[in-house]
Every structure is written in C-alpha cells, then in structure tokens.
C-alpha cells in the first residue's frame, strides 16, 4: 500500500513542538468554512440569487464526495483513482429510479417486482447499499495490490463501469438520463433551491461527523496504523486487509451518496459522472484542501468550484491555472489549503 507519511511531510525543521494553539486554530478555521458555506446561500436566497444557492449546493455535494475519498486516501493511505465509479453509481441509482417512477414502469420485474420511486430516502438507501456492494468487490480485489498497482486497478474498475454505462441504451447510454422532476423528500419541497441545499448541507455535516467519530474509534486507530506502519499493526495481532477493506467500503458509500445528490441537483445523470476525469477531480479537491485533514475537502471544493466558475467564465483554459495551483500545493504546501490556513497537522 502506498502510505502517505503525512506527519513526516508536514514537519518543517524547527517547528515548535506545541500543538495546542494549532488545534484551536484548525477548529476555528473548520467552523468558519462550514459557517460560510451555510450562510452564503441563505443570503443569496434572500437576495433572489438562485444561481449562487445552487453553486453552494454544488460545493456541498462535491465536498461530500471528497470527504469519502479523503477517508480512503488521507486516513487509509489507499490512493483510489476510481471513486467516480461510486459517485456515478449513486447518480445512476437516483436517475434510474426517477426514470421508472416517471414512466410508471418497474425497475425490476423479475425475480421480484421493484417499482421506481422518487422518494429520496429509499433512493439514498439503495444508492448506499449498491456502492457498498460494488466497493466490497472492487476493494477485495484491488487491496491485494499496493502502490501504483492499486491506483491502476481502481482506475481500471471505474473505466469498466464507465464503458458499461456508455453502452447501455436503456438508460441513455452516451446521452445520459434526464431527471425531469427532482426526487422528493417526505415533508419537504426539494424543488426549492434553499431546501435542497439544506438537505445536502445536512448530509455533508453528517458525513463529516461520522468521519471524525470513526477516526477516533478503535477502527480509526487501526486504520491510522495501517497507513503509518502496516507491520506494527500486524505485530499487534490486527490484520490490515479487513480494516482497509471496510474503510474503502465506507469511503465509497459516502462518495456514492454525494453522487445521488449530484444527479438530483443537475436533474441529469450521464456517463461523465463515471469518467476518470471525475475521479481525478475529486482527488484534486482532496489534495488541494489538504490530504487527511477532516475539513480539507471543504476548503478544496470551495477553491475548486469557485475557480471553475470564476476562471471558467473568463477562459476555457482555466484548468491550466488549476494545474499551476495544484503544482504549487504539491511542491510547496503539502498541507493544502488547510495547511496554509491552520498550520501543520496535529499529532494524533
């Protein structure tokens, strides 16, 4: 397994060995970022700027996808280049279910009859379960390898699923699948942009809280040790493989749920959600924000989506500038945006 020696990278010579003020600073930065994400669309909504509400929703969803990937890459040291498979699968579950609900045709007619539904709770559950099963298969095979091979095999699995989606005409193939009516959450009007934002925001907060709690638990301790020193973990009598596999599945489920939300935000799901560009985009967000930092994905996604919107509006070559920033982060600021805002990672 390719391990990211985070502690070693973040350590600058002569840095003061007093982590306390930094902990507070990082927490403060975290809350500020989260507060900004919550308040901005509320203000935009009050001003009637729906476009910006949707932009915030996009940030929340992309953040959540990256929170999932960060669990694999940052906390587990598993550099997955195939998380678009889970993002896209979540999206297709939402799309296919809505398609059948709209058509009044069953999703499955054999062996059991399963009707389509536009109930988000059901869709989310199915999306998460599907991603868990897919991640169990992909992870079980991929985690037998490590390093570059792991990166390549996760990419290969994602590409297989991408081409499968492209060549399946029932659900739009290359053209994708429109979701004519946004799926419904019981008791809420999901068509209202602010309501839908709040749903996505709540899901993001939940994903962050679960990740934080998870990483403090015994499971998190074992996963951290699997990343930092696999031999030490095995010497303690804990086999690294099952620990990694479970983390990979949880990571995929979080990213998959983000995918389901993304399809509903756009009213469309297409094979592009499954493409390797998407895997790369989520990975770029994790790296931009700060690998293995809980709120890294949020700062990374904010930077990414704002650049995409602002620079993308000015020039179609905005990715060039993203590339330059990414280069800068990788060469000079290994802690990403969180490293710049909140200092080096704290000791665990």
């Amino acid at each position: 397994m390719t391990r990211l020696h985070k502690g070693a990278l973040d350590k600058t010579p002569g840095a003061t060995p007093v982590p306390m003020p930094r902990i507070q600073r990082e927490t403060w930065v975290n809350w500020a970022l989260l507060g900004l994400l919550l308040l901005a669309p509320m203000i935009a909504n009050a001003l009637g700027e729906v476009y910006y509400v949707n932009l915030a929703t996009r940030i929340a969803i992309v953040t959540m996808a990256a929170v999932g990937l960060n669990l694999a890459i940052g906390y587990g040291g598993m550099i997955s280049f195939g998380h678009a498979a889970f993002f896209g699968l979540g999206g297709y579950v939402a799309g296919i279910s809505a398609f059948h609900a709209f058509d009044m045709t069953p999703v499955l007619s054999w062996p059991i009859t399963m009707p389509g539904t536009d109930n988000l709770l059901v869709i989310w559950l199915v999306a998460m379960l599907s991603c868990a099963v897919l991640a169990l298969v992909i992870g079980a095979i991929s985690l037998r390898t490590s390093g570059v091979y792991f990166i390549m095999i996760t990419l290969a699995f994602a590409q297989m699923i991408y081409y499968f989606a492209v060549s399946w005409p029932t659900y739009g193939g290359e053209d994708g699948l429109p979701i004519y009516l946004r799926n419904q959450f019981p008791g809420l009007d999901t068509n209202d942009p602010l309501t839908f934002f709040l749903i996505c925001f709540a899901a993001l907060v939940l994903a962050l809280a679960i990740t934080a709690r998870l990483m403090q638990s015994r499971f998190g301790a074992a996963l951290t040790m699997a990343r930092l020193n696999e031999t030490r973990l095995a010497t303690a009598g804990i086999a690294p493989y099952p620990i990694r596999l479970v983390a990979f599945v949880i990571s995929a489920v979080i990213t998959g749920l983000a995918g389901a939300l993304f399809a509903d935000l756009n009213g469309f799901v297409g094979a592009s959600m499954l493409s390797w560009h998407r895997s790369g985009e989520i990975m770029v967000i994790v790296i931009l924000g700060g690998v293995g930092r809980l709120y890294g994905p949020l700062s990374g996604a904010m930077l990414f989506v704002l650049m995409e919107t602002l620079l993308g509006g000015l020039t179609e070559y905005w990715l060039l500038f993203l590339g330059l920033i990414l280069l800068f982060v990788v060469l000079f600021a290994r802690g990403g945006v969180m490293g710049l805002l909140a200092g080096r990672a704290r000791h665990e």
Partner: protein
Amino acid sequence: MSDAVLTLSHLHKSFGALQATHDVSLDLKAGEIHALIGPNGAGKSTLIGQITGHLMPDRGEVRLAGENITALSVAQRARRGLGRSFQVSSLADSLSVLRNVMIAVQGLQGHSFHFWKPVHRDASLVEPARAAIARMQLESRAETPVSELSHGERRQVEVACALALKPRALLLDEPMAGLGPEGSARLTELLEELKHEVPILLIEHDMDAVFRLADRISVLVAGQVIAHGVSDEIRANPLVREAYLGD
C-alpha cells in the same frame, strides 16, 4: 519437551542457491531466556522472519504452545501470543508513545471493528498501555511523538508494545542496541525479572548482556546451529570461539 513454549523443528529456508537456514531446531522453555547469537550474515534475520511469519520456511515447523503456527500470518501469530520487538524499530513515528502501545492492547482485546467509542476515553485501552509504558520507565514520554524519541527510547517503546500484547513467548531482536550502559543495565534487570512471566528468545550482540542473562545459548553460523548449551559451555566451545568470538 513438554514445557517448551516455542519450538522450531528442522527449519530450512533457501534463497536461490543460498541456504539461509539449514535444519535449525531449537526451543524456548517456560521461565528461561534463550539467547541466539551469531556473526553478521549468519541467518538470524531470516530465522526470525520464519518465527514471526514474515517469511515462510521451505521445510520444517514452528510451534507455539503446542500449536503448529507455520502457516499462520504475522497477525494470527501475534494473536496467539507471539510478541516481538524489531531490530530496526518499527513504530508509527508521528503518533505518541501511548498511541503506539495502545494498538497492541487493542490487538490483544481483539476488537478493532468498533466504530463509535473514542479510544482516548477508553480506559480498557489506555490503562494497560500506560502500565506497559510504566514498566519500561517511559511514563514521562507517554504523550511524546515517537519521532522525538532517542534511538534507545524507541527500543523501549518496542518492548512496551510487545509486553502490552501479554505474549506467551517474547522475541527480542537486539533490544540493547543504542541503549547506552545505563539503559542497558536497566533493561537487563527488567528482562531478568520478566522471564518468569514470559520466556524470551533474545537475539543480541552485547555479549556481556547475553552471558549474564541467558539460561541457554544457541550459536548460529552460516544458517546452522553449530553449538548449543549453557553460558559456560558456549564460552569454552572451541568451534564458537573460532567462528564467532574471534579467537
């Protein structure tokens, strides 16, 4: 042989034409320190690898408390009570001493698929880990990241991790290296006391410590045990003097 905790019988291991382990048999009995010595390149590391599960022997058998563990993984052997320290310390450098030892306690308890309760508030993990750290007299360093410890202190953390596993057999790979005379003397005392709880297979270059501590000594040269016996026998053995002690 009935009181042997760890038994190696007729282990063979080759890498291509190189016979790194040739028909090695030895055992570790309850209450003893059995030292394994040998010059560099004698095949000590290869032999340790086969005991701990990092290497598979080509032939032969490893038994722990009567159970054949030859085919088990590193983690499975550890769960069955094989504790070890590494020659080159193998710890998570960015984590505190306490966190490193807590993983061993967690492994002993066997519950790693607990997703909710924070470990730092889990007394059943923290208390035994602190006890193992105290035993190594490292209390003042418990919260210090391993990266800030001295070479010798890291060795002590290694032993603390092994102790926290409450092993049935302890394999210590050059625990004295880098300790300095004072630390070395302290560790010698501790091992003398410890052997009554758990038998120790000691790989060590510090001959003073070996002759003082070991109840029995086996000498490994070119992958073979060329001599075996109590300290005085080994000291007097002409083969050993020639091959190892440099006379």
